[in-house]
């Protein structure tokens, strides 16, 4: 299931997280929200992002 979760704090702080995407798809899927809300102050790629990237590379080698 592909999901985007955004938490809005009472002091105006905003954190966006993505879940269930393969590699760069998560950034593409959430870009419209990031652009609509303001400017990106910080971005962190997590383990899931890199795991899928690694899997993609393995599959490409097999072809």
């Amino acid at each position: 299931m592909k999901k985007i979760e955004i938490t809005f704090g009472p002091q105006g702080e905003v954190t966006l997280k993505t879940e269930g995407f393969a590699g760069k798809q998560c950034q593409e899927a959430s870009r419209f929200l990031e652009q609509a809300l303001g400017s990106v102050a910080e971005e962190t790629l997590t383990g899931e992002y890199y795991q899928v990237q690694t899997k993609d590379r393995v599959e490409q080698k097999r072809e």
Partner: protein
Amino acid sequence: MSHITKIDIEVTDLTALKAACRRLGFTVVDGQKTYRWYGRPVGEAPLPEGLSIENLGRCDHAISIPGAEYEIGVRAEKGGYRLLWDSYERGGLEQRVGKGAGLLKQAYGIEKAKLEARRKGYSVYESRKTDGAITLRIQLGGGR
């Protein structure tokens, strides 16, 4: 999670700002060209970046807040809107919009994200946390 982003809110959508104000019980007065404030700068507080003293108190729309003597000015600028307001305690604004207008920014962000997600046909679920934070869960590929 595949990536985490921290975002600085910028107000660019008057429709979403009006929805945010409705959510908080505030009213946007379209076309009101002045907003109530103390009327002159006090102490050593710096002027908002890029503005002169003459700009203070002038706006393109205003936000009226029940129980607050002062108002928030909405100033149209290139690419969006700037919120101008006086945090002096007697004006009653900071108690209602939070420090740095945090509660108004929070409400704006929620309404703007809902608008954009629904425009794409995504389902949006809202939940409130005990610390005052509000979370939107946006499910891609589902109905409204």
